[in-house]
């Protein structure tokens, strides 16, 4: 009796999980269809697979957009780590008095709608001639991710055992040694989680990229949206582009689920 019920619940869980995942699977399947097969009124599950859509993506220069996305993500994540690690260190291991105020300030900048800063950024960038510049876009992404990174780093750093730090201080370690050879090795997995999340947010960002870039520095998300204006059939090529664009993050997320959860919950969940 009990086991029948368990089997039923397990079966139901599986059906729900697969149904929930279906749009992703469908995107993946469609990317291997010809445009005619993809636009079939009766959904086709059996078809002759083709790589036609992927070669069309290459023709449309998707590599350039992916390169831009990669550059923006790597540069902004590096800037964030350089700024966030010392700041989080100061907020957790060597706390200053108004820690809460500092934390509150940082997180409140994340609450601030992008809408509030986009206009001046657009006009300042235009005057500085850095509109459509990947480095300028990277700095915007860094500012967007910095508060979250500091919060996440702080929670990882606060778990470093106080005894370890004190022992190193008694041994006469100065601040640099303390940070580089004592604290950082312990929180390396945490830093990896922070880096991964910042990378994902930059990689997926649409609003700033669509407004602050055009021909040279456009990243992948606006490139995807550009298929909508295309006439005729475009579902297969759109699915292929979406698959390529989403795959790095999906794989990273699958393999680092635990770190992702802890990082995203900003240390509030263990």
């Amino acid at each position, binding site marked *: 009796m009990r086991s029948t019920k368990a089997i039923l619940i397990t079966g139901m869980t599986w059906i729900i999980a697969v149904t929930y995942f279906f749009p992703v699977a469908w995107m993946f399947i469609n990317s291997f269809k010809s445009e005619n097969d993809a636009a079939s009124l009766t959904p086709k599950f059996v078809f002759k697979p083709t790589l036609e859509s992927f070669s069309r993506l290459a023709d449309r220069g998707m590599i350039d957009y992916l390169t831009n996305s990669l550059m923006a993500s790597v540069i902004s994540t590096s800037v964030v780590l350089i700024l966030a690690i010392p700041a989080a260190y100061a907020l957790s291991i060597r706390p200053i008095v108004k820690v809460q105020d500092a934390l509150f300030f940082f997180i409140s900048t994340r609450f601030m709608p992008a809408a509030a800063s986009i206009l001046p950024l657009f006009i300042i960038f235009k005057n500085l001639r850095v509109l459509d510049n990947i480095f300028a876009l990277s700095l915007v992404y860094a500012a967007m991710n910095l508060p979250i990174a500091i919060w996440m780093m702080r929670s990882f750093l606060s778990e470093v055992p106080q005894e370890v730090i004190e022992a190193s201080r008694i041994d006469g370690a100065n601040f640099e040694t303390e940070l580089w050879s004592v604290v950082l090795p312990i929180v390396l997995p945490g830093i990896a989680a922070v880096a991964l999340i910042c990378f994902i947010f930059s990689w997926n960002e649409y609003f700033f990229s669509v407004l602050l870039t055009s021909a040279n520095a456009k990243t992948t998300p606006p490139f995807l949206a550009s298929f909508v204006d295309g006439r005729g059939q475009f579902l297969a090529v759109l699915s292929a582009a979406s698959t390529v664009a989403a795959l790095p993050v999906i794989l990273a997320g699958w393999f680092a689920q635990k770190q992702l959860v802890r990082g995203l919950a900003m240390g509030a969940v*263990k």
Partner: protein
Amino acid sequence: MAAGLKRQNQEKSPVKEKLLPRKLIAPALIFSIVLTQVPFLVTIYFSLMEWNLLKPQEKAFAGIDNYIYVFQTGDLLPAIIATVGLTAFSVICSLLVGLFFAVLLDRKFRGQSVARTLIITPFLIMPAASALIWKFSMFDTNIGIINYIVQKLGFSAIGWSTQYPYISVIILLTWQYAPFMMLILLSGLQSQSREVLEAASVDRAGIWRTFAFITLPHLRQYTEIAILLGTIMLLQAFDPVAIMTKGTGGTKTLAYLLYERAFVGMNVGQAAAYGVVTVILTIIVATISLRSLFKVFISGVNK
């Protein structure tokens, strides 16, 4: 803020030691201020100007004209309602769906980790890609899967993103964010004390009573965290509106309205005024919600 940093603790350590934390935090603070606070001050300045990018020679000081315009034309209130409504419905729906998933996955069964992996994937997909895929392969009137099923069931096709843009956006956002809620709630469920649950089953408290009186109260803090983080992320959701509905059918959020004024209408002054109003509203909401939930974050759930 600066005053707070100056009032250092009275530790008898060398001056250098006392300065260190400030030196460490200064770069992040300055960077953050330059890229977020300074642009906001510039937005305030712009909002007092009559300035249309299409007519640059007519740039002039406008005083509060733009604000009068913002409050007199009837666009502000619907945008506030759209923003609050879409955010609230999406947060509630994804929280409920996420709780359902978390309960399903909080048991041992064959392939449990694979099922969890499948369910979290929508959260990992690039939001622009999700919006496009849903619009063209799920919701489409001709080739969309949902309409294929709807027609098989004997109904006529529904133009989801054109007829029901509001519901379509909520469905999309729920699909994307329920996995996030699930992950947080699942770690809540898994941190429940086994003894308490066993005691409840010894006392013959049924599944539902155990869930209502033990599990749900235990999940309270996790739910608060999920709501706060979900709200931060969903409040700024711009992609589904820009890609799927273009602000039609009650989905013109503040972010989209401002985008439309600035980058379609090219009216810097008016857009800036909308921006300032948006920020003030956000600050009010953020201060209330953040202050009340702040303690959970500072101390962590399990401490």
